[in-house]
């Protein structure tokens, strides 16, 4: 919402300077988004008279002028404008002035060999209009030598405030003035509502849609002469960025911005019969003032005559029935549209307008008559003509609300103690009326006792947003100033602050920092993917109805696509090695699953003077990350079982899953399937994995106490076994069998060599396992060691393994 300082002062009688006004606007909840004084941009441009104009000796289209700018000797100026001539009074930029349209600093120069000092300007150069056919021509009585901006009334700061959706009253300059007056910045001037002596009956208007348009007031003015608006009006509208069109149109705009009251003016010559506010009919179309055609339906309110729709009620008028230059008879509409209806219609049509912004918030329902009178009076004053009586179809919702309020409620909710009489003053200055006593005296057993009473506060018609006592507290506090609210410490539980993190949060923190410590960089990728990306990892359950783009459409069922896209971007930037992880959710019909994903691509080890050639990642690098991160997450890593291949995203022969039982999958990992890698534009070995944090069984809380433990007195013994096994036996099965061969003595079994080749039959492989034996009270005897070895060999034998000779 923009307005100028002088405009504000038509409503507010104040001595406050601009800085104070801006500060107060912010303090009372009208956030200042910007302030600009056009005069500052026009410093150095003065009113000047062309004394002589002669042809330029070297150029046909140029003239050499002498210009009197009111100070010292006339200056010689070279000018290309066709309208430059002796006697013209225009706007002259002196040496040093900055031309607003192009930022050029004017200086003494020679044009085609002739000295030129400064510039005579067009409106476009000064950004005062679009005209560039010639230089500005001012009225003959314009005072030569005066700063142009001062004379033209441009020394008037434009203030832009952001009005929150609840403050319909501040969608007009007057409402803002009222707030400032309440905050102690002067006095709100009385509003003058003229009395209209109508000649003849009011126009034929009615409302057939009392829900959408409960009240439709109108007058006609016959015999008007449309034309340009007066300077004062055009200047204010221009200053806030509204293009003046014609007096009839400008009047409605002006009143809307001045008083927050949207109006519409129809050219009666374009109307067939009376006007009715009714529901739209399916398929009806209207060409709106913005040049676009809208199709309305039964949920919308329109203004129509006997033949056509002329107005999307409360949002935008029609192109064909608006006031034109030759309009002679007008109908002025001043209606009340239901805010909810306007909101729905505006959203459906995706159509915003200044009128919608006001009706949607709710205009003052008690201001229809006054608004219509003010508009009619302005039309008659500026355009002449004869007004009719008013027609008042329907009735606006005028019921006033009252709120029971005690001044103590301010302290209770806002924590600031404002004296009751100050609260009363504030409320009244905002237009509320206050009755009743804050404290009343009652007689109990004949004795006077002061009991807390309450006020009855009547809400002004223009404050639809206020409907409960907290609203009144808000009004009082914002006018008193939030800086008067004392900072009050929250009560603190005695002692050291207690831990507050949830188990899930602790797991996420540990996993995140473990991954970072292991050399992976944390990325945050979009939660949404393209349909194609989602399909590549099994498809998503949730597809947006209104995505911002096709690339961000499906809620991700996997973290891999986001990571792979990020990997590709890094590779394209020249990264030789990519280690990325993300901790986030995957989205399914059944819920959102906390997940860690990672991608390792490119070089695992760069070429080096020690390590030789660069080494790529392989599937076991992915496995190592998965296990390390699972351990960090508190998963029972020792109990995890490896199950065959992972999902279709992975290489079928170089991937795996880790589970606690067949159905509880905690992670999958492996070499990325080459076709998926290709889809993301990646080549070479790319390995990846995902850990499903929500599948990890929560750790049981056991307190700080650890299980008792004393390191064994005797040293552990190590024995190596090499087995020949059928090639399809999984190493993990053999290791488990060996470890389980003697649960008491064997504390660890670790595979340390795999061999296929000379000495090993085809279809077989050699697996070497180091077994750790822990003696108890006394050392193992030779017989005991032999017995353990025998049980190891026997257990391995069940898998078809034979001890290698």
């Amino acid at each position, binding site marked *: 919402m923009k307005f100028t300082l002088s405009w504000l002062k038509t409503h507010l009688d104040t001595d406050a300077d601009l800085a104070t006004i801006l*500060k107060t606007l*912010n303090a009372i*909840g009208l*956030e200042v988004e910007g302030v600009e004084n056009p005069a500052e941009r026009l410093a150095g441009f003065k009113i000047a008279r062309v004394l002589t104009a002669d042809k330029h000796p070297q150029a046909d289209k140029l003239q050499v002028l002498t210009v009197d700018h009111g100070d010292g000797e006339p200056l010689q100026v070279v000018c290309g404008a066709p309208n430059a001539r002796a006697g013209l009074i225009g706007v002259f930029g002196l040496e040093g002035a900055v031309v607003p349209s192009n930022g050029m600093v004017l200086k003494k120069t020679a044009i085609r060999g002739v000295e030129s000092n400064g510039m005579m300007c067009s409106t476009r150069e000064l950004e005062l209009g679009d005209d560039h056919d010639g230089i500005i021509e001012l009225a003959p009585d314009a005072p030569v030598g005066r700063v142009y901006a001062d004379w033209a009334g441009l020394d008037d700061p434009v203030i832009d405030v952001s009005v929150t959706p*609840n*403050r319909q009253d501040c969608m007009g300059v007057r409402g803002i003035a009222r707030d400032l007056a309440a905050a102690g910045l002067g006095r709100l001037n009385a509003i003058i509502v003229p009395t209209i002596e109508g000649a003849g009956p009011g126009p034929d208007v009615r409302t057939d849609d009392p829900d959408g348009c409960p009240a439709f007031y109108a007058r006609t003015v016959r015999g008007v002469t449309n034309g340009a608006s007066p300077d004062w009006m055009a200047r204010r509208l221009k200053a806030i960025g509204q293009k003046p069109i014609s007096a009839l149109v400008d009047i409605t705009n002006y009143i809307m911005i001045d008083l927050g009251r949207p109006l519409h003016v129809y050219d009666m010559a374009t109307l067939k019969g009376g006007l009715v506010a009714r529901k739209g009919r399916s398929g009806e179309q209207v060409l709106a003032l913005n040049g676009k055609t809208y199709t309305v339906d039964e949920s919308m309110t329109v203004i129509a005559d006997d033949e056509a729709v002329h107005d999307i009620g409360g949002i935008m008028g029609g192109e064909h029935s608006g006031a034109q230059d030759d309009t002679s008879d007008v109908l002025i509409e001043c209606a009340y549209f239901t805010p*909810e*209806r306007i*909101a*729905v219609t*505006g*959203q459906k049509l995706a159509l915003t307008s200044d009128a919608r912004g006001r009706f*949607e918030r709710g205009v003052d329902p008690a201001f229809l008559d006054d608004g219509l009178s003010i508009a009619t009076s302005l039309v008659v004053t500026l355009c002449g003509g004869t007004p009719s009586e008013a027609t008042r179809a329907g009735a606006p919702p005028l019921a006033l609300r009252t709120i029971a309020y005690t001044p103590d409620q301010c302290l209770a*909710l*806002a*924590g*600031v103690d404002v004296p009751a009489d100050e609260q009363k003053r504030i409320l009244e200055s905002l237009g509320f009326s206050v009755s009743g006593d804050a404290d009343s005296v009652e007689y109990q057993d004949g004795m006077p006792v002061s009991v807390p009473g309450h006020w009855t506060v009547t809400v002004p018609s223009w404050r639809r947003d206020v409907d*409960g006592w*907290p*609203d009144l507290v*808000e009004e009082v506090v*914002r006018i008193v100033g939030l800086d008067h609210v*004392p*900072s*009050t*410490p*929250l009560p*603190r*539980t005695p002692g050291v*602050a*207690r*831990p*507050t993190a*949830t188990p*899930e949060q602790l797991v996420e*923190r540990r996993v995140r*920092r473990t991954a*970072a410590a292991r*050399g992976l*960089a*944390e990325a*945050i*990728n*979009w*939660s949404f993917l393209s349909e194609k990306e989602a399909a590549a990892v099994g498809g998503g359950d*949730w597809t*947006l109805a*209104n*995505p*911002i783009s096709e690339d*961000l459409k499906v809620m991700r069922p996997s973290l891999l696509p986001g990571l792979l896209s*990020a990997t590709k971007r890094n590779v394209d930037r020249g990264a030789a*090695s*990519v280690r990325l992880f993300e*901790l*986030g*959710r995957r*989205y399914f019909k059944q819920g*959102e699953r906390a997940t860690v994903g990672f991608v390792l691509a490119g070089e695992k080890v760069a070429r*080096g003077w020690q390590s030789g050639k660069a080494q790529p990642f392989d599937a076991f690098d992915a496995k190592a990350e998965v296990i390390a991160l699972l351990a960090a997450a508190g998963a029972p890593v020792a109990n995890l079982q490896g199950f065959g291949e992972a999902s279709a995203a992975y290489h079928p022969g170089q991937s795996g899953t880790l589970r606690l039982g067949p159905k509880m999958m905690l992670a999958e990992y492996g070499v990325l399937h080459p076709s998926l890698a290709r889809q993301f534009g990646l080549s070479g070995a790319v390995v990846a994995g995902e850990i499903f944090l929500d599948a990890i069984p929560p750790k049981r809380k056991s307190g700080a106490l650890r299980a008792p433990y004393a390191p064994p007195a005797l040293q552990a013994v190590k024995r190596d076994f090499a087995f020949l096994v059928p090639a399809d036996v999984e190493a993990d099965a053999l290791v488990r069998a060996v470890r389980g061969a003697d649960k008491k003595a064997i504390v660890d079994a670790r595979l340390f060599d795999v061999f296929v080749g000379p000495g090993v039959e085809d279809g077989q492989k050699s697996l070497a396992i180091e077994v750790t034996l822990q003696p108890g009270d006394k050392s193992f005897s030779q017989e005991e060691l032999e017995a353990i070895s025998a049980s190891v060999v026997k257990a391995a034998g069940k898998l078809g393994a034979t001890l290698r000779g």
Partner: protein
Amino acid sequence: MTEISALKTGLIADIAAADTLDALEALRVGALGKSGVVTGLLKTLGPMSPEERLEKGPPIQDLRESVTAALAERKAQLEQAALDAKLASERVDMTLPADIGPQGSVHPVSQVMDELAEIFADLGFSVATGPEIEDDWHNFTALNIPETHPARAMHDTFYFPDEEGQKKMLLRTHTSPVQIRTMMNQPPPIRIIAPGRVYRSDSDATHTPMFHQIEGLVIDRGITLGHLKWTLETFLKAFFEREDIVLRLRPSYFPFTEPSVEVDVGYTLVNGQRIIGGDGDAADGGWLEVLGSGMVNRRVIEACGLDPDEWQGFAFGTGVDRLAMLKYGMNDLRAFFDGDLRWLKHYGFSALDVPTLSGGVGA
């Protein structure tokens, strides 16, 4: 006796002159070996009478001890020299590079969330979470934002297609629905923060369709705007780790709070960069909006099944990405979601930069 004395002098000189361990060993064998000269002399002591041994023994014993000591000393010298020579031959160029392994990093958003959790833990706030795919009741209706309210248009909401007989589903536009879920699921008093991803259909240098918010909620008896003010001041001072934080509170409007307050923090322009701290009204200062807040609207408390005459409190919400940008000086939000390793290395945090109150939350 001069014979023995001469022998001693000769042997010791020979030992001192031995320049290899082998030569020294030959000398040892020649003197102390089975048929060594010293061994021979020692053997002469056996057949002597006690008187004679008393007279001739000490010089011979002295000879043996002196030669033994000289051998040991020379051996140690030669071994040291050999070791020195070996070490000298093993010298490498220690300016060659060593591979310290890959360096990972924690994303600034995660770091800031941990910082916030740490600060608010000290104030007694625990962490709550909720779904990102929400229904419109939790995201709007329960928060006093009815269907036609202009505030719904203010949020550029991502919706999912309507399904027959199902609630209207959307991507949460703010973390405020977690307020609702918390109030419905746990009895007051309540002090929570709720961090997480939120979504709005918006995209430019300062807006991305996905970003991060953190919500705070306090519900208790007798909580006022004064407590809100203190909490925000305390938290922002702790977060920015500066004492010169100046806040500007402006009345505002959110459907779910009343009164509503927007909070700006003052900054100072230093070499063209906005540095948080100082009075925003100063000549080289300005204000940046950092959060929205207010006293929880009675309707919201009621919608959650609590009695607003008994329980009241405040809520606030702020952008985590924005806080990170203001504190650490990034100026393009889009880079947060690009996964550029160079950016992550520069703006990311080491795994061990765990924010703690004792170490300073800024790690």
